[in-house]
């Protein structure tokens, strides 16, 4: 898609998400949105900005702070064939409604022998980098990707945000759509340059399980997602000056996981660096390394994992900076592979 084409415009990630949701709501009366502060506030992270004005309170519902009830209600409405989108503003709050998420939403299809479907989208903000401490900064990709039955998607730019959202709403299975606060383009939490991209006016889908090579390179494969796509790209630019040519793979979805693109890249470069903002143990980095080892052990010359050391996220800035991977951490890990 050309950047100057008449049908594209530059959007922030939040605007791109909203444009996909609005489109689907116009096309299909069964789509509705529920969450805390999604109507009049427009979503704490601007994820529903303007929707209530167009669709009214019936289809953009502010709900009581009763997550078990409204996330479970989304499951129930979805099982009746509606297409609810439910938002719980921070993934850190999922614990209060965990049963509805990981036992009902995730497992009813399986336990019904495939006779029940749960076509809902659960959206939530993830990520740190703004010093909000351990209950408001987690990423938790691994926790939910670990549970069979949930599709997990993670946009990194406005283009991805829209295409993945169209796909998520149309998907007949439950999708957990995890967006990084730092990428949304909200006034009070400035985004890096990368996530604001040209976005087609028309609807389009990005299939789940299709990773995207955001930068090609021959020396090392950096596999990552969300905010860290942008940090990896910045690290790659710096490394290029030193003659290290890094390929950056944006996973875009964790379930399903596009192992093929990762393996293909590692077969070319021989070196793998996995970068993730989630906790290190039992998480995304381990999963990617294990998958590549399963399929292409012989291609691997070296492996590095860059993730949150297994600590709750500290509040104070010097400590948060220490644990959340940054551009230098990624570059250093890449250098260790060379």
């Amino acid at each position, binding site marked *: 898609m050309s950047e100057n084409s008449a049908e594209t415009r530059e959007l922030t990630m939040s605007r791109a998400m909203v444009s996909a949701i609005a489109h689907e709501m116009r096309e299909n009366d069964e789509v509705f949105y529920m969450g*805390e*502060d999604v*109507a*009049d*506030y427009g979503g*704490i992270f601007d994820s529903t900005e303007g929707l209530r004005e167009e669709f009214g309170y019936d289809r953009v519902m*502010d*709900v*009581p*702070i*009763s*997550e*078990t*009830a409204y996330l479970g209600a989304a499951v129930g409405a979805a099982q009746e064939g509606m297409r609810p989108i439910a938002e719980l503003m921070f993934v*850190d*709050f999922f*614990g*209060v409604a965990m049963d509805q998420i990981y036992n009902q939403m995730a497992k009813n299809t399986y336990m019904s022998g495939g006779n029940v479907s749960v076509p809902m989208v659960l959206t939530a903000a993830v990520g740190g*980098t*703004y*010093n*909000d*401490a*351990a*209950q*408001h900064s987690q990423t938790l990709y691994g926790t939910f990707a670990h549970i069979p039955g949930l599709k997990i998607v993670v946009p990194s730019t406005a283009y991805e945000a829209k295409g993945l959202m169209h796909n998520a709403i149309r998907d007949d299975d439950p999708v957990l759509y995890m967006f990084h606060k730092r990428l949304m383009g909200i*006034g*009070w*939490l*400035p985004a890096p340059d990368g996530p604001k991209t040209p976005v087609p006016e028309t609807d389009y889908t990005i299939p789940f399980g299709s990773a995207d090579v955001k930068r090609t390179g021959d020396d090392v494969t950096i596999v990552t997602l969300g905010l860290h796509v942008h940090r990896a790209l910045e690290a790659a630019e710096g490394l290029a000056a030193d003659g290290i040519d890094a390929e950056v793979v944006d996973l875009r979805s964790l379930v399903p996981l596009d192992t093929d693109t990762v393996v293909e890249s590692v077969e070319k470069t*021989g070196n793998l660096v996995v970068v993730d903002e989630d906790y290190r143990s039992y998480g995304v980095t381990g999963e990617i*390394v294990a998958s590549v*080892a399963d399929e292409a*052990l*012989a*291609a*691997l*010359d*070296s*492996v*590095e*994992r860059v993730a949150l*050391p*297994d*600590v*709750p996220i*500290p*509040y*104070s*800035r*010097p*400590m*948060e*900076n*220490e*644990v959340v991977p940054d551009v230098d951490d990624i570059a250093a890990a890449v250098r*260790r592979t060379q």
Partner: protein
Amino acid sequence: MYENIVTARHYEERLQEEYLEGKQPAFDISAGPIPGELHLAAGQEAAAAGVCQHLRDDDTVTATHRPHHVAIAKGVDLERMTAEIFGRQTGLGKGKGGHMHLFDPEVHFACSGIIAEGCPPAAGAGLAAKKRNEDSVAVAYLGEGAIDQGAFLESLNFAAVFDLPVVFVIEDNDWAISMPKERVTDVENGAKRADGFEMPGARVDADDAVEIYEVAGEAIGRARDRNGPTVLEVQVHRRMGHFMGDPQTYRPEEDQEAAAERDSIERLERDLRNHGVDDERIEEIREAAHERVEAAIEWAKEQPKPDPSDAHEDIFVNPPSGVTDSEPDFEFAGGDD
């Protein structure tokens, strides 16, 4: 009580100034000396002072994401609390918790950023007191938005069936972020939640510290005398946005003005005067409170910042052997050898 209220108000006014430093002209939540979110409680101080006036150091309080006024009334160490909010090493949580996660075990105070999740631990503190045959009590604070939450309702039942010495204090400030109370609950009086559990519920309609003090005294007395839990709802006012930086575009101007007019501080000052306390004494208390706040903020700002490597400590108080460093040097070499 007056001293607590003016301390809390002034404390937050000063925090607000400090918070905005480095965040202007463009508001960036991650800039400036106080990072992260900041939820201020201007207009809600009477709910803290009126209740906590009855409490001892060994009574437990669990507060919410909006904790400063309650912490001050409960006697949390003001210097170390401030150092925590500034993210300093000598803060209550060594800079790991921040403003929503203040813990002062000396005075049995804790808070959490997850809605209503302070209620079960408060019931637990009540349970511990009962098992040990002690007469300490527990108070759980929550907002009116939190009364729809499972953790609160389950805690009511738990406290009721085991007759625990717990008082649930609902601070009704009319708003849960952008959601006005009438749009998310059908009960006007949140204390009525108690009815379903056969426990007493009381509501104080005015943000009047004296009246709150009196009604809370009965509830806490009942708990201390082993007569079980109570729900107490008090009307307060949110004078500011939900958090610093909240533009409040959802909130009618009249409502903001009404909140600003109902000032529990002025009300209490009138009461004091009516009881013969002269202006000089009131001014004296106010000034002493201001000085105390200033000293705490000065002290906190002089405290050292944590060492980045401190981030790896305190995950356990008893780290399992072999797990001392959360960042092991890991290098995996696969391949053809």
